[in-house]
């Protein structure tokens, strides 16, 4: 009868707040979820508030190249003698924004595709799955590199390329969940009523995908962060002389033995961000790994 308990208690809370907020609260209530939220929050705060706190202009040459950390320059200087700390503080915003935009685009295209294929079934479904599988066979980085080589590197193309890489993954996941939801009787009732597929997707399916989206979001975002930083390391993202964590690693690798801080700190920050996102996602997945029917409310 313990489940009965949980139900009645949750039902009471439910009256006062929406399910998504409830879920967020319960996730942050777990130890892993709390740690993840703290790490992600700290890195995002750094990325967005950093530019306002930077002591120097990120592009100004202030000292000799590869100067050791000092009172004036907490992280020393980079290959061109620019202030390491200022470049670090200014270098996270584009990374965060680009990966977030890429993830968002992937969902905007992938969820409707997956939901449509899942509800329709038959040839549409088989086609969507086949195309997704085909695209999944191409390595992500190679795909984006070829795309950027063809149309020329720019930040928006990086985001679009990464979104294109993620769309088949998103499609497959949300198609699978849709198939599960579409087997539920309320969807059959809508079909029996004669509702169009689009109406069924929008009214009956998509509202039931939110919780899965929350659990999946972290994976997509982490993959995007890694791809964006890889691309900027390769010089295909943010163009120099702008500051960027990935770019900082590649610009300064010749001085790795003399002045490692300028490489280690941005690299570690990216690692902390992906680690935090993973912790948070894990907490969501644990919380949600029960049933779709309860809408993630166990």
């Amino acid at each position, binding site marked *: 009868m313990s489940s009965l308990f949980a139900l009645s208690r949750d039902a009471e809370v439910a009256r006062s707040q929406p399910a998504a907020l409830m879920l967020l609260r319960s996730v942050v209530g777990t130890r892993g979820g709390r740690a993840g939220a703290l790490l992600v929050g700290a890195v995002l705060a750094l990325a967005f508030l950093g530019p306002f706190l930077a002591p120097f202009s990120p592009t100004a040459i202030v000292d000799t190249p590869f100067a050791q950390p000092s009172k004036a320059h907490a992280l020393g200087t980079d290959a061109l003698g620019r202030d390491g700390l200022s470049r670090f503080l200014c270098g996270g915003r584009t990374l965060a924004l680009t990966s977030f935009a890429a993830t968002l685009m992937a969902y905007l295209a992938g969820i409707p595709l997956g939901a449509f294929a899942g509800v329709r079934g038959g040839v549409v479904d088989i086609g969507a799955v086949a195309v997704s599988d085909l695209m999944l066979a191409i390595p992500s980085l190679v795909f984006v590199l070829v795309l950027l080589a063809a149309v020329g590197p720019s930040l928006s193309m990086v985001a679009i390329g990464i979104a294109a890489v993620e769309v088949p993954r998103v499609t497959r996941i949300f198609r699978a969940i849709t198939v599960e939801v579409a087997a539920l*009787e309320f969807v059959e009732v809508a079909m029996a009523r*004669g509702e169009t597929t689009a109406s069924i997707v929008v009214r009956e399916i998509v*509202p039931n995908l939110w919780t899965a989206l929350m659990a999946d979001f972290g994976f997509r975002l982490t993959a995007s962060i890694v791809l964006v930083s890889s691309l900027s390391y390769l010089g295909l993202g943010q163009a120099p002389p702008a500051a960027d964590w990935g770019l900082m690693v590649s610009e300064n690798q010749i001085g790795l033995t003399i002045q490692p801080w300028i490489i280690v700190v941005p690299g570690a920050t990216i690692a902390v961000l992906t680690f935090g996102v993973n912790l948070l996602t894990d907490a969501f997945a644990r919380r949600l790994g029960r049933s779709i029917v309860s*809408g993630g409310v166990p």
Partner: protein
Amino acid sequence: MSGPALDVRGLRIEAIGGVEIVDEISFAVNRGEVFGLVGESGSGKTSTALALLGHARRGTRIAAGTVEVDGLNLLTLPPAARRQVRGARITYVPQDATAGLNPRHRIGRQVEEVLVAHGQPRSAVGSLIAQVHLPSDPQFLRRYPFELSGGQQQRVAIAMALSCHPLVVVLDEPTTGLDASTQARILSLLRDLGSQTGAAFVYVSHDLAVVNDLAHRVGVMYAGRLVEVGGREGVFGRPGHPYTSLLLASVPRLSEPRALTGISGAAPPPGHRPRGCAFAPRCPAVIARCREQSPVEVANGDHVARCWRAWEYAPGAGGEGSAPRAAVDSGALLAADGVSASYRHPGRRFQVLWDVSFSVRAGGCLAVVGESGSGKTTLGRCVAGLHQPDGGTLTLAGRTLARRVANRTAAERREIQIVFQDPDRSLNPRQPIREAIGRPLRFFGYARGGVAEQRQMAELLERVRLPPGMLDRYPRELSGGEKQRVAIARALAARPSLLVCDEITSSLDVSIQAAIVAVLEGLRRDGLALLFITHNVALVRGIADLVLVLERGTVREYGDAAAVFGRPAHPYTQQLIASVPDLRLGAGTKGMGRIEAHRRQSDHRDRVADSAC
């Protein structure tokens, strides 16, 4: 050696944190006696059953009381000694035998394991298996659990429970997942075992008819309390507690068609139980004192009721033989002619319906009855257009219906509405009730928002007897019965002429079921035709005017309800009716002879089904 085999006194189980789950449970069971513990979902009967073995589920603990097996208090024993008593002196048979058997071990070995654990000779396996009427040959013992039918698995579980000649056997809903005829065979087995072994049986069930069939003494639980305990004749014949009276009035009876009363409202869950008597908010005989003070036990011989007005309340007799007839017979509304259907599974085709024909007149009620796997759900889905039949025709008011719902006209889709079995799956958890009911209203053009829509939604809720305040709630805030009413209201919003009801009450408690059936009867009086699909033959008795009996996809009998139930012509129908436990007193062994006659046939069927796996 005198004294009861099992003596429970003042048992209290709490959730961690002190919320009461059950309290003040006291009863005793003598050797050779079957004690039936009945209650609806959430009444605490399973928590109580587990506590009899000294076990508390995760998140709960046994806070007070004693459980004595042959004078030995289980609750104060050290864990090791308690384990020795469990499985030897007191044993447990779970509801789901499949979950209780290890799928990777042959059944002979599993039974052996229990014997070895309690120092019994291995050689007893054969006789144990034979005791539960299963073949004890080595071939059978080498089978895996999945090679057995549900009934056979339950028999193995019972054999394991009996292996050490226990003094007390606790059975927790052992026949709930089984077909009526399988259930009847298990019950007859238990009856035999009760007199043979001399053990005390505690039989936990939500099914009053089964308990009436089996038990010598009965305890009725409500909201964590034992509200009534007494002999079977006393409790069922002259109940002292209003809850028992109303519960009995909710049970459909095969022997006498009548209107079911049902109990309004729902049982309060733990932590939400009111002060005073927990039944007071739903009780028709409530007085001021009930809301203030917890009632004390009132005894009438060995028959005890926990009520301030014990033996004072008698429910008004339900309307006699109320199966309503439509005023005018306006010819067939829906007719099926030679419908056959199958399911495709990669590479294979399973035929589930063969040549099914029937008709439902406007305002009529056709009951489709059959056991699980008889194809009755597929038939309902074919009518609703959710499953494409392979052959045959369906006509609605003379016009042939397209096989797929997508190819039917809007008017045809509107005319036929369907309500499903599982209330949790039939409402979108992300939509408030307002949306569930409002959408069909707008879709079929009856309303376009505004006051008119509000009024229509309130009317729909009223027709299924729900308060208008429900509109802004979400499905998870509703009980199972309430959700099912919303699903009916949603179907009614389309203003159908035929409602397909697919086992719509089978997941609900009996008092809730009775209330839903009352709603359906009201709708029939307004001229709605019903295609009522169910495995519960007794339930159909009160509402159907026509009956279609399905067995393995074939029509066994079709005709007027009174005729089919009064003089069943086909042996399968006879068997189906005979295996329904009835509440009538003294009905205990009704039809057992007939069941025995069919047992060989059915066992053979089980075996055929097994070998097909």
